[in-house]
């Protein structure tokens, strides 16, 4: 009679580091379909630095 023993195998996963090579920057590109990409870029830049009113 044969017996099977389960082996406890531990897999050690390396904890990902937060160096630049592991960071994925997600950007929302909305400038590809516009006729005025530079102006849209400028609008986004201004809006990112703006304190807006609640609407």
């Amino acid at each position, binding site marked *: 009679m044969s017996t099977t023993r389960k082996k406890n195998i531990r897999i050690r996963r390396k904890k990902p580091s937060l160096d630049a090579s592991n960071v994925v920057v997600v950007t*929302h590109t*909305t*400038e590809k*379909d*516009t*006729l*005025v990409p530079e*102006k*849209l870029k*400028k*609008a*986004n830049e*201004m*809006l*990112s*630095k*703006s*304190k*807006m*009113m609640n*609407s």
Partner: protein
Amino acid sequence: MTRATYSYKNQGTERYIFTSIGKKAIHKFVDFSPTQTPNLYNVGFGDLLQDGSIDDTANSNNGDMIKVLATVAQIIKDFTTQFPEIKLIFFGSTPERTNLYGRILTTYYMDFSKEFVITALIKTGPRFQEIFFAPNSPNIYCAFFIKRIL
């Protein structure tokens, strides 16, 4: 603004084209593009050139500026009627042109303010702040916003 306007046609829901007929015929576009802020669209306006490129800095001097601006205003009303929840931002390609837009808003403030909430951006140090647009204000506006009163 009950002035004469050019007839225009849509290219999709976010682009309009019309022809300015003054000293020469110039094709114009008005382009509404979503910004990275939800429900806030940028208004682009300029000339469509014969080689297919665009120019939003041109001073056409075609002798029909009032009719062209009235057409742009009508297109903005048309777009915001279809999408009343969308707020628009617009500014000129130069500070002088942004000032011109401010003067136009001042001239037609009584008319526009019945249909739109009009606000503007002013510079406060390195940042900007949105405030209510006031006709003849000494503020230097960097951009304007309009949103339909719902």
